[in-house]
């Protein structure tokens, strides 16, 4: 892993890249604003325009900057910080912070739980569950592909509710369920082609994978889920 360590003999375009990076990090170039033009950089540092372009391009491909045809280069800024400690959970915190959040329901049907989910959800293998597959987006860009399993007997109202209108949390509220706790385990899974495509990633890309179980105030499991997350579009952080 590189620390972005630079020496004075490093190539000029790399030095420029680090200068721009630290100005973004230090807030001199705030998110949503344009950075100076190539000509301005070239003049300010006494370097060639092509060199400027190479340095900027590197940050564009890192996702820190965005080039908009005819309008300039914009600062994208930091990834959405996701605080695992935050009340309401990962998905909800993403939605509350950003008005441009959206959900696309890819599948919703009833099926038998089977032994694995029966054990996690404390039900019988023959009991039915709702199986929901959905894609969560921010500003029109997908960041999470999620499979949610909910016992039919615990939340029968799910049958008729349109999940592209109401969130699962709202549905639990309708049913008088109080969410009290959740447990999340992280792993890294390589995505198969179709899942990768939903997230706009190349097949076989490694993705942060969250296995989550939510419990109500009686400590009864209400849902379990497995989701694949693009960690370049949101980051995981914990404060303690």
């Amino acid at each position, binding site marked *: 892993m590189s620390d972005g360590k630079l020496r004075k003999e490093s190539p000029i375009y790399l030095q420029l890249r680090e200068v721009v990076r630290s100005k973004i990090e230090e807030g001199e170039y705030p998110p949503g604003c344009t950075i100076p033009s190539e000509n301005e950089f070239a003049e300010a540092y006494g370097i060639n325009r092509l060199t400027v372009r190479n340095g900027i391009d590197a940050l564009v491909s890192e996702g820190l900057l965005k080039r908009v045809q005819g309008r300039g280069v914009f600062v994208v800024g930091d990834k959405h910080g996701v605080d695992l400690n935050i009340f309401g959970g990962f998905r909800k915190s993403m939605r509350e912070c950003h008005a441009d*959040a959206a959900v696309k329901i890819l599948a919703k049907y009833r099926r038998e739980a089977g032994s694995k989910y029966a054990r996690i959800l404390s039900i019988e293998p023959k009991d039915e569950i709702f199986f929901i597959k959905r894609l969560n987006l921010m500003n029109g860009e997908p960041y999470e592909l999620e499979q949610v399993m909910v016992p039919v007997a615990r939340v029968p109202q799910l049958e008729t509710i349109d999940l592209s209108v109401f969130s699962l949390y709202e549905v639990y509220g309708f049913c008088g369920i109080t969410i009290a706790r959740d447990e999340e385990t*992280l792993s890294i899974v390589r995505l198969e082609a179709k899942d990768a495509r939903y997230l706009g990633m190349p097949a076989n890309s490694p993705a942060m994978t969250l296995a989550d179980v939510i419990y109500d105030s009686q400590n009864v499991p209400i849902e379990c889920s497995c989701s694949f997350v693009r960690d370049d579009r949101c980051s995981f952080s914990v*404060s303690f």
Partner: protein
Amino acid sequence: MKSESTNRPRDLAAETIENHIIDEGLKPGDRLPSERDMCDKWGFNRATLHSAIRRLVEEGVLVSRVGSGTFVASPRPVIKLQGAISFIESVRAMGYEPEARVIYAIVTEADSHVSKKLSVPMGTKVFSLCRTRYIDGTPASIETTFIRAQGCPGIEAHDFGEESFYQVLREQYGIALVHGRERLSVTTVDETEAENLDIAEGEPAFYQSAVMTDESGTPVEYFKSTVLPQRLSFFSERHWSQTPGEGATVNV
């Protein structure tokens, strides 16, 4: 809108194997049927089964041993994200034996990255410790830590292959690291890491980094760690103090 009315082949195959493990009461170390038998029994094609097994290996449910088959894995040690439980305690609590080997332990100067993390001027003397962590003799992570050398003179003389870094800080230098902000992302292991972790270059891994502060909130330690997901996973538990449900969902 596209709709998926049934479970996909790989997901179905992975779930079928997990159900089989539960239904047959298989324990860690037990062998699964041969791939051919599984394909015949459940009607999967070979490619689908392979893909499902790979995923279950990545999730820590199975282990594959070339030439001898596929086995139920022992549960992976988990590191709890909240709280200051050390690697050693977490691993021991799961019944595994932790071990550390020092790659280097030197006093050096803070470069621009480290100086920003520790809020010190570039060139400040820092103690830098790099260790490989092992679980039951297998490498699991590489951890590099930086701390201002001024507050802990002579720290480089300790053998952190044997001693606990936090314990030495606490007991010998009176430095208690109480708060921190930790970040996790996905990375791929580079050549040096691959060599130390005994894994192929380019394999995915967790990248964990944190700045730890003392009681007053002053940054004291910066660490970064490359963690192999097949050897170790992270766990987080949240308690919700209020009734959720106000979050609006916007339709696309």
